[in-house]
């Protein structure tokens, strides 16, 4: 399976390597660098690079490359998923995963990598189990450990590993028992230049933060479960119950997790909560943008950000906006207009000129990508009906929050 892992930073240094089998020289990364040189953007580096003796399967996250070296046939998705899981675990442990954080916590990182793979085959990837084996570093524990001489490493096997619910650690105890559910929906859309919707769908997920003592068995039901086109679940969800009753029944892992993600596809009509009126004329370089709300059921649209990647020929821009602030980066040629919240009485507007090398812009039109959030609304109309808990006596505090966000929301100019 996975022979070795190399982590490479944006400047091309291999700053960490880990081998699960015989050592693979880091010179194998040269093939990767060759490929990198050939292809400009890091986003475009192929996921699998075959070399004479190895296969390099890489992912690009937080401006680092994680390169897994394999020698034999292996499903590429298997390795890719695993690498992403590694990064997710780092995120979970250190709240974010950057080069400097990995370097700072290299011992924990190394211990984690050692625990997650054995001989290149995944061993323990469940966050609850890992956290019992290797405690995540925090200041308090570091101090306590130096004083008491205890270590971050557990001497016993996490109880969850052997149980039927390997994702949950046992002996969980909280004084305040709480369960919070965030229903987040992202609107993916392509709007053509006349303002009509080419394609729109909703990607939703339910993230939860569950801090309940003991072994709670939860059921979550929806008012309108028929909305879902396609769903995927955390392993803790009992699929049979879902099939027969459309109820999420599960024993949750402790802490944060993504309970389910769902897809409401192009078959159903998706409300588009925002519109952008735009005009861009290359001849005189006039740009005029107006943003307004649409189909929001009375909720305010917040955190609106508009980004336009301008063609390479654009050199500068002189623009005035009546709300928020805008910036233009002459290197990446990205025009960013941070609008903020949309006030319906006075619509935000941005106008002015963009200067470009004359006559060379051609017909290419940039695409506007829009970001926004709407609180307390799920754009699909999804509603959680009730949450019940079995198996424990206490009364937990329950909360559900709905948020709608822009996903890949693009408007063609």
């Amino acid at each position, binding site marked *: 399976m996975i022979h070795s892992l190399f982590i490479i930073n944006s400047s091309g240094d291999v700053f960490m390597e880990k081998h699960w089998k015989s050592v693979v020289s880091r010179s194998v990364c040269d093939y990767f660098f060759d490929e990198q040189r050939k292809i400009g953007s890091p986003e475009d580096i192929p996921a699998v690079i075959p070399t004479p003796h190895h296969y390099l399967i890489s992912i690009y996250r937080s401006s680092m490359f994680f390169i897994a070296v394999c020698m034999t046939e292996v499903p590429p998705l298997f390795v890719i998923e695993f690498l992403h899981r590694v990064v997710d675990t780092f995120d979970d442990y250190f709240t974010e995963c950057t080069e400097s954080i990995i370097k700072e916590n290299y011992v924990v990182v*190394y211990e984690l990598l050692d625990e997650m793979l054995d001989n290149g085959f995944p061993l323990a990837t469940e966050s609850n189990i890992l956290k019992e084996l290797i405690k995540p570093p925090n200041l308090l524990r570091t101090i306590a450990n130096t004083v008491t001489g205890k270590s971050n490493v557990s001497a016993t096997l996490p109880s969850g590993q052997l149980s039927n619910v390997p994702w949950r650690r046992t002996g969980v105890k909280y004084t305040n028992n709480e369960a919070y559910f965030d229903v987040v929906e992202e609107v993916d859309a392509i709007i053509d230049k006349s303002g009509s919707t080419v394609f729109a769908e909703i990607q939703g997920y339910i993230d939860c933060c569950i801090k309940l003592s003991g072994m709670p068995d939860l059921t979550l039901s929806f008012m309108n479960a028929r909305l879902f086109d396609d769903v995927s679940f955390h392993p803790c969800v009992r699929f049979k119950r879902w099939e027969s009753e459309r109820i999420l029944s599960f024993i949750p892992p402790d802490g944060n997790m993504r309970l389910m993600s769902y897809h409401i596809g192009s078959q159903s009509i998706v409300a588009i909560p925002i519109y952008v009126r735009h005009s861009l004329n290359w001849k005189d370089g006039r740009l005029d943008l107006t943003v307004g709300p649409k189909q929001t059921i009375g909720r305010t649209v917040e955190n609106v950000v508009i980004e336009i990647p301008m063609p390479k020929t654009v050199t500068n821009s002189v623009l005035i906006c009546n709300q928020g602030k805008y910036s233009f980066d002459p290197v990446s040629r990205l025009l960013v207009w941070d609008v903020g919240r949309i006030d319906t009485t006075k619509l935000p507007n941005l106008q002015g000129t963009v200067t470009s090398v004359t006559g060379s812009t051609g017909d290419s039109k940039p695409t506007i990508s829009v970001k926004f959030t709407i609180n307390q609304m799920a754009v699909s109309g999804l509603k959680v009906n009730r949450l019940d808990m079995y198996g424990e006596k206490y009364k937990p505090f329950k909360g559900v929050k709905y948020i709608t966000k822009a996903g890949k929301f693009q408007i063609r100019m």
Partner: protein
Amino acid sequence: MNNNGSYGNERSISSGGAGDIDYASDPASGGFFNSDYKKHDDLKQMLDTNKDGLKLEAMKRIIGMIAKGRDASELFPAVVKNVVSKNIEVKKLVYVYLVRYAEEQQDLALLSISTFQRALKDPNQLIRASALRVLSSIRVPVIVPIVMLAIKDSASDMSPYVRKTAAHAIPKLYSLDPEQKDELVHVIEKLLSDKTTLVVGSAVMAFEEVCPEKISLIHKNFRKLCNLLVDVDEWGQVIIINMLTRYARTQFVDPNKGMIDSYDESERPFYDDEEESEDLKNKKPSFSLDTDHRLLLKNAKPLLQSRNAAVVMAVAQLYHHCAPRNEVSIIGKSLIRLLRSHREVQSVVLNCMAYISVQRKGMFEPYLKSFFVRTSDPTHIKLLKLDILTNLATETSISVILREFQTYVSSPDKEFVAAAIQAIGRCASNIKEVTDTCLNGLVSMLSNRDEAVVAESVVVIKKLLQSQPSRHRDIIQSMAKLMDTITVPAARASILWLLGEYSELVPNIAPDVLRKLAKSFVSEEDIVKLQVLNLSVKLYLNNPSQTQLLCQYVFTLARYDQNYDIRDRSRFLRQFIFPTNNENNLAKFSKKIFLASKPAPLLVSRFKDTPINVRTLCEPDRESYQMGSLSHYLNMRASGYHDLPNFPEVAPDSSARNVAEIPSPSPPPISSKKESKNRSFYSESDSSPVDEDSDSSEGDSDDDDGNEKSNDEESSSDDSSDDDSDSSDDSQSQIEIRKVIKNDEIDGEDSGSDSDDSSDGSSSDDTDSSEEKPQVAKPAGKSVPSKPVSNLDLLLDLDDVVPNLPIMTPSLGGFLSPLTPSLTGASSTMNSVLPVGPSFTSSKYFEVLSKIVGRGMSVEGRFTRQPHLFSPKMLNVELKFTNHSSEPFEEISMSFQKLPPGVKLHEFAPIACLPQHGSLIGSIGVDWNDSTQPLNFDINWRDGSASVTLKSPVGELLRAVKVSHTMFIEEQGKLRGMNEHSEKVSPSKPVAKIPESVFEVTNVFLLPAVEPNIYRFSGQTMASNSLVLVTIKTTADAGEVEVIVNCEKMVVGSLLLREIKTIFLN
């Protein structure tokens, strides 16, 4: 941030402890060797201290070096010493180091082996598992037999986690020594039959790595694997499904066989499908899927909902390769969902989709819009989406797709634009209805301001025109005009080719173009030059009068060109039109050669099968690879790829998958396992002790009766113990409880052992590791692990390599391997260790709680040398409560906060009332885990409490066991080196009292004397069942006594020696 990749922790240490050390030392700088030396010296010092903190820091820095890829191999000797460290984190880091460097420092690495061997018997399953992990990861060929043994034993460990680790270790050993395959296959077979979800995933992984061709191993487990599939961890699911796909292709018939070859299903308009397939169904009611085939598909289906893309893909490929055609479409929706995932996932999934979309167009048609390209997509994703869109295009959807393509053409991403234009071309050639529209669109693009767009359009138009050139004279004309403006070589070459090919359509323009090009010939690109030559030949053949001079001019230029290709070409073409000798037959046919009508090129997706006539044998196309595999993604055979077999014509016998309902509780699997074990390590000679012992076993034959009696009792206790234990242990693992009942209160005699096989006989329980699983044995249960036949040969092997190696007994088998049922053969009785009653019980009490501290109540303790009722590993300590005060003590109970690791305590039954001046007896059970550490607990009564400390002398931590004399000698032979402690003392007591004195100190059994003046005592530690062998030799005049203690637990051995020694000295 220091850019040398030094890690945070390291710098803080260097500033704190080691002064200025240049970590980023450059080999060129003068101070390199100096600082390097200093650095390592410093680390060595830190490793040699006895402070865990310093060791940990040192290890952390060393791990930092490894992580950065620096060489830390020099420190090997210093690090390997710490493998015995008590600090779990230090130990863990040492393991990491060891795995990294053991291969390079094989001899030194052997020093650590014994530690792992010992750890393999640790009661803590995590420690057992990690010992096996590290042991198997040390890639040192010498230890292959040891690892083999360890794997075998761990494969029948009680803890599923350890069994999982054993499965992981199998491929490691296999890669180290492929010779071991046959034996490993046996272990794999055993692990495959495991019913724990934790284990099966890894077992199948081992199967795939070691013996994927042994498909027969799967038969019996097929249904179980299908049923467990949903509960296996994600990674295991992927491996299992992939394996079962291959299995299904060998064991089931093609589900689509007999369905009229409706491969062109995809070609039909989508809405037609349903009726048709309905028809098909009606036509073929006879065909039904094998129930097992159905089971596999049914159980895999829910996994399409997995959060893990790899699992979804595995199910998708299973359906793609093995499901009836009308069921495959359910995978479409899930694959579409994956498109929201990370970029790399998208790339792989789109690749597979592009491949599927060629064959099963209907599947993705409803999701057409999901493939619309976003500007933010990386280029290669965009290209894949284009491929899929063109594959999906039908008459109905083409208008939507073309409208999309139109917007793509104005994208700033040039590579993408080019691909979009090619895609338009492909649509145009595939769907006849839109060819004209597309062509018009492409022609309108010729006026595009972007040259790249124009160039690409020209190339595509050229291809399209070939199919029906006569209708498009105006297009050819306008393209000829482009020659003046367009500079992209490929486009220029394409135009030239078109003009040459269809010069009859534009008889006036073509020669003029040639004229212009003759002028600029020298400055053209090579590809254009070749086409100029081509054009001139064709024009000359059609219209020699106008073009002869031009031709000659061009050929002369070409003759002296810098590029030999062009020189070659001109020389070659010249023969056709300006033949040097008149005999040249070629010239006669030149018209036929050059102006033959050429077939229009097929514009196909790169994911479409190449037409059969083009496909070469050595280069199989994507079709033949298992979807979702690396080979499929790269479209080349990856090493280790197993071909997906074709469905058999006739399904092999399905009864092979039947599993007998109640497998007989058979000793055969065990004995066969033992046999196989023996075969590898022991030479023929090992059979001799077996024979030898058969006579000594005769004496034991009486016990059989007792066994049967106890067997009945046991079955009842068995039930209760099962109930107790279920909660703590994994309920799924089938646990075979092997108990030995000894009833020494009745007859004081020793009894044999008995076994109680549960359903499979495949796994066994080792009582020593049953700390999670307290057993209730009555009236006094003791476990009797049998020693396996000697592993001496193996050890001798090792001895040869490293003579100084302290040798621990590798007789792991003694505790981890299944016991041989004692009633079945003579071999077992010979090496059995039989617990016996104590030869001496002290009646002396020691003080536990003084009456002053206890405010009137005193507690005294006594070791009764009886096992505690609660667990055979617990020592029974009798507590005598005496009330010295005039008040009664009420509600006496005990409590404890924290016990030392591994220590267990069973409290005494609370005493309701202790009358004044009365005394009562209570008893507690303590499992000291073979250590002499003191135990702290509180004794509480109604008005107060007192904390007490209880400490056991090492001698009490043993139980007396009876072993045969041969076995004593043999075991002693194994426990040499560091495991042997001996000392000579001059006693002050007469010789005759030696046994009594020893019994006073420790609970051992005196073997019948064979030689005068040599006393042999045998015992066993309570918790880990390690043998303790005490030999006392006296000289004839009793002036000197030599005490030898052999015990695998070095600490126990040395402490015991000290205690025995003191009795002789006092």
